[in-house]
């Protein structure tokens, strides 16, 4: 329990850096700008385009990748908690705590980015705005969680955890597939949730379950790949 708590605290300390704040503000700024540009291009379907192309398609994955990069202190996941491991604490428990901190930040950011996009891309007088914001909140939060797990697993591969970048590439290359069921990547699941690329058998609930399951499986696998 102490390892879990200290892992969470370690993540919190690493996020208290100016780089994290700058990355967050920059991501939000880009998302707002793109949402505004989509609205200027055409009001019909502007939120969907902004959410699928920029917010959850590029901004959130990049931000989540950076969050895990910060949480791991530019190293592999296992090495990221070595300061606690050498005190005699269990690496796996500390890793879970560290990933918990990262997942929390990504979840919050996903919800904030989604809401900000909808609020800018859709007119404030739109009667469907409230419902859309509510739906985007949970989709964004789930997407953030999914990406946190995805990049946590990526952080266990490669030298200095460079597997994060491979996973980002895999998500971009294979996530455009309509069949989230065939290759469950966060991007494919989020596309299914937004209803942008409805594939065969990719219902809303199935996509949500897939994304949640993916986050959980990736996090557990990442923890298991670390030594105790």
């Amino acid at each position, binding site marked *: 329990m*102490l390892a879990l708590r*200290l892992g969470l605290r*370690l993540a919190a*300390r*690493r996020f208290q850096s100016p780089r994290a704040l700058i990355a967050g503000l920059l991501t939000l700024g880009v998302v707002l700008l793109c949402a505004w540009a989509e609205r200027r291009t055409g009001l019909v379907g502007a939120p969907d385009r902004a959410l699928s192309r920029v917010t959850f398609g590029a901004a959130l994955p990049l931000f989540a990748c950076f969050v895990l990069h910060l949480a791991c202190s530019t190293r592999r996941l296992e*090495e990221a908690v*070595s*300061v*606690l*491991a*050498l*005190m*005699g*604490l*269990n*690496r796996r428990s500390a890793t879970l705590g560290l990933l918990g901190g990262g997942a929390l930040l990504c979840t919050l950011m996903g919800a904030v980015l989604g809401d900000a996009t909808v609020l800018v891309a859709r007119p404030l007088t739109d009667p469907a705005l409230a419902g859309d914001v509510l739906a985007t909140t949970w989709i964004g939060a789930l997407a953030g969680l999914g990406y946190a797990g995805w990049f946590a697993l990526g952080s266990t591969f490669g030298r200095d955890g460079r597997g994060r970048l491979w996973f980002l590439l895999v998500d971009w290359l294979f996530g455009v597939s309509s069949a989230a069921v065939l290759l469950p990547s966060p991007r494919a699941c989020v596309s299914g949730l937004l209803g942008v690329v409805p594939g065969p058998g990719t219902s809303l609930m199935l996509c949500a379950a897939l994304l949640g399951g993916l986050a959980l499986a990736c996090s557990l696998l990442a923890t298991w790949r670390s*030594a*105790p």
Partner: protein
Amino acid sequence: MLTFERASAGTLNHCNLTLTPGLHVILGHEREGTRDIVELAAGACPPRSGVVRVQGRAPHRTPELRRRMVSLRHHEQLFPSKTVLEAVRIALAARGLAIAPEQTLERAHIARWADRPPASLDARECRSVAACIALNVESPLLAALHEPLAYLPGLSAALLSERIANWVEQGALVICTTSSPTSARALGGHVWLLDRGRLLPHTAGASAWPIVPGQQTVLLVRTPAARALAAALSHVEEVAAVAFDETHHTSEVRVQGPDPKRLALALTRAARAHGIPVLAIVPSLPDIEFTRAANAGYLRAAYDAAYRSAQLQPQAERSPHART
């Protein structure tokens, strides 16, 4: 017991060693893997290949084992808290030590760093704080220390030496790595020489310095009357060589001889006889390269001697005198 079976990590390749409780000093260059030995023994990283075991278990995969071990690595990390004091508090709490962090820092004479953020400490200061935390562990199973008598600003070497002696008395396995023969000599214990990834036991025997076989004792004498002392020593039988550099070191004389005790006595006698004040007598040890070369030469000579005697034995058996 610490066991390495063909363990490789960093620059260390296929290292085999078995160390029992006691003080072991590994003398070698960092580029040959002295720091990797500490990393592996402390369980900071897994071996690239081979096996590392402490009491039959892998330290990298056993938190209970790591809790009973202390380490001082080349690059130490502190918990990224707001202050050094908080980082020390967390480290002590994680180890289950009920000691006030203020007291810990005070005892090591580095209390002035308490309010500094750990990120502001340089690598050597981080090592000092890590050593200060390690000193609180009462009876560790294993202590793996890299350069315990160097690169520790603010921390007294006597305090560390005393603690190491204390751990050894309690039956711990203390393994120190250093690239300085002087530090190795100051630490004492069983000295091993790391030579291209192989560990050679020290070649103590008839040599003056146990870790440098065949090398005569060299004493560095500090005196305001260096020329007079050099002149006085030139006729002394126990002294094999005297070196005095009037241009660069006007108050130093280097004295060389085969027997350290006789040399020191002769030196003192000569100084008293001529009324020359002596400020300090410091043994001068050669560097690691010389130490390694001396050991390699010693081992080669031993091998040649064994080979020659093995060749002579059958000849002696074949000779008619041997039959009668």
